[in-house]
């Protein structure tokens, strides 16, 4: 069911175009989708589902939120595919939908208090069968701290960090996603990193 093209894309960190794909190009799929070809859109979904989910997850850190957000992203994409500018890269457009939704979610929901044991739970959830529990616990503690600090950042900072560090998008692409100038991406990213570093240092008593 998953095409190899989709798999390649899926597996990629960023999700956007990888030109070497077999199968139809994004542009072809978009054009077909705009003509109402649901199968083509289905292919787009499969091609970008992992990237979209990955972004959704990094912005929500919740299985149900990420699932909902990822699905909703494609639902909205389908609804708006007719307005998509052919020739533009597809993934930043999808990522914009994800981040806009995430922002909306941020606005409508108080973030979890810092005492949340969610990180613990999530750490537990990431425990794989083959993992060494001891190694895992140390790593997961670091990750949990980082996640909590990340949680505390402004949504815009979270988004720009997720797009850059998790999604590996270029500044240009991030600018497209967030609909801001590249210069803003640069400064925002810098501030976000500084803020994250500061919070992490605070939390760990300077021992990052």
């Amino acid at each position, binding site marked *: 069911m*998953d095409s190899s093209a989709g798999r390649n894309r899926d597996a990629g960190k960023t999700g956007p175009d990888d030109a070497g794909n077999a199968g139809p190009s994004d542009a072809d799929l978009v054009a077909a989708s705009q003509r109402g070809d*649901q199968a083509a859109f289905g292919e787009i*979904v499969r091609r970008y589902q992992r990237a979209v989910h990955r972004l959704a997850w990094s912005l929500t850190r919740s299985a149900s939120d990420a699932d909902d957000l990822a699905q909703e992203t494609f639902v909205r994409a389908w609804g708006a595919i007719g307005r998509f500018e052919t020739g533009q890269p597809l993934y930043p457009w999808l990522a914009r939908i994800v981040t806009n939704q995430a922002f909306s979610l941020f606005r409508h929901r108080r973030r979890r208090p810092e005492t949340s*044991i969610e990180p613990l739970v999530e750490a537990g959830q990431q425990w794989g069968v083959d993992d060494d529990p001891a190694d895992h616990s140390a790593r997961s503690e670091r990750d949990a701290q980082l996640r909590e600090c990340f949680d505390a950042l402004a949504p815009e900072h979270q988004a720009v960090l997720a797009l850059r560090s998790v999604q590996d998008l270029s500044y240009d692409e991030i600018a497209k996603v967030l609909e801001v100038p590249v210069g803003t991406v640069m400064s925002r990213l810098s501030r976000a990193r500084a803020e994250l570093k500061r919070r992490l240092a605070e939390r760990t008593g300077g021992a990052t």
Partner: protein
Amino acid sequence: MTHLSPEQLSALHDGALAGTDLASAEAHLSACEACRVAMTELAELDASLDAALAHDPGDAYFADFASRVQTRIAAEAAAAEVAPAPVVRPVVPAPRRSPWFAPRAFGFAGAAAALVVTAGLAWMLFGRTLAPTDLMRANEMRSERSEPAAGAPAESPLAEQAVPEPTMQSAPEPGAQPGVGTTPERPAVAPFMKDAVPVSPRPQAARALGSDERARATAHRQTSTESRTSGSVQPPAANEAMTPKLMSEVTGASEPAASGPAATATPAPAAAASPAPPSDARREAEARHDAAPSTTPRAPAAGSAPSSGWGKLKAFTQPASPAPALAGGTAKTRALVGQSLDLQQSAAAIEPACGVVRDSRGTPLGGAQLTLLGATTRSARSAKDGSFCLERPMVGDTLLVMRVGYEPVRLVLVSSSALALALEPVGTLGSQDGLVAGGGETRDRLGSALGARTRAPQPDVYARESVPLREAVSAARDAAAMAARERTSLAWERAAAAWRAIGAATTDAASYDARFREIAALREAWLLTPDAAHRERFEQAAAAFVVGTPRALPERATVQRWQQELRRGPASR
């Protein structure tokens, strides 16, 4: 020497500098130890952030992702179609399956079959052949009616929910593997997208399901399941008219629905629930009238299936409105609905509604007060065995079910439906329990038909816990639900870990509950991958649980049973 600014460092790290900016930054970096250190820290932070934030739910999750999206799109389209009341399309196309659909979807037929087995009818509006107060006969009839549904995939809209829920609930029980075994082959259906109108997709069986799905999804974010791709239809009441805690089930008795009054009356509830009946209800009505419904139960013809499923679905997706029905909508709709109601009235006049009230675990509940509000008010009280009968139920009447200790249920009657009501105990976190006592992946959705059947009518053990912990419980339930869907030992391990964290953070009843769920999850993992490592984890957790819990705890006995099973090996279950 001026150090690189954080912005420059950041951009340099990201490879976003070019030209002279890049050259000068690199030149500085080569000469400045402090900036190199800062750069390294930046890179480390970046890498650890990636590790901390990245998450891959696994192939199983993505296997049916596209189909879930498609289902949702269908739901959106359905919702969108409601408002503008587009041109009526009298004939609903045959069910076709989109190429999006992943193969993991349950078949409708299987769903229906599972429904018959597991859904335990609680409440029915029967056909006119039913003698008043004849519960025995009622049960027979339910069986009879359900059977054709097994062969008629799209005819059992409800079944979809019946499949996953009971199977998941029973998952922890020996011999009860989730789903697949009870699910016959999916009907061969043509891909529906070839000629589908893309922007405003046509109503189809799959889409109908989607609407319901969407309603649920909107009501409560949830991890989705493959089961969603099967048909599911709830009555208007299920989605709109009920209180959130209510768990009711409506068996989509579309096949008996065709037997005259019932079928034609189907749109009525929709109208009742909304001042502006959906176009699809109209369409449905038209389709039924056009098709000259026979007076015998409809054959499980695939072609006729979607109309009922879709129509009902549409009804359910309507916003509830206290304003009844017939006043709203176009003249055409009114006429159709009126016609339907007339038929229904003649039928309803001689039909009782008998059934059983149960708790969400499926235990019959006596002493429930049932009130039927309509042209006249009728009331009844369920007997010790939960049974009751109400006279002259009418489509569009509102049924109130109340019992001490349970969330009240309010729903608008749908004709020709076999309804199963389950009362949810007051004060639970919701019906998202992952397994065992919680009963599979029971999504906390408005009017969700299938509740956590096996959930004990007991107070929520986490009620006194902090909000973060309750959130963690919710997450653990999600994890378990996901595991039940994915059916991988890894997913169950994750669920177990989530419950373990909760078990460690709680005491007493909450701790017992969480630990029990952890063990149940470990057991599932072991059953799926019966190797030494899984066995050991399961074994150890079970042993610790048995040692550390009160003898009277019911879960303890269950775990002890599992221990015996463990000694015999997974194959013996």
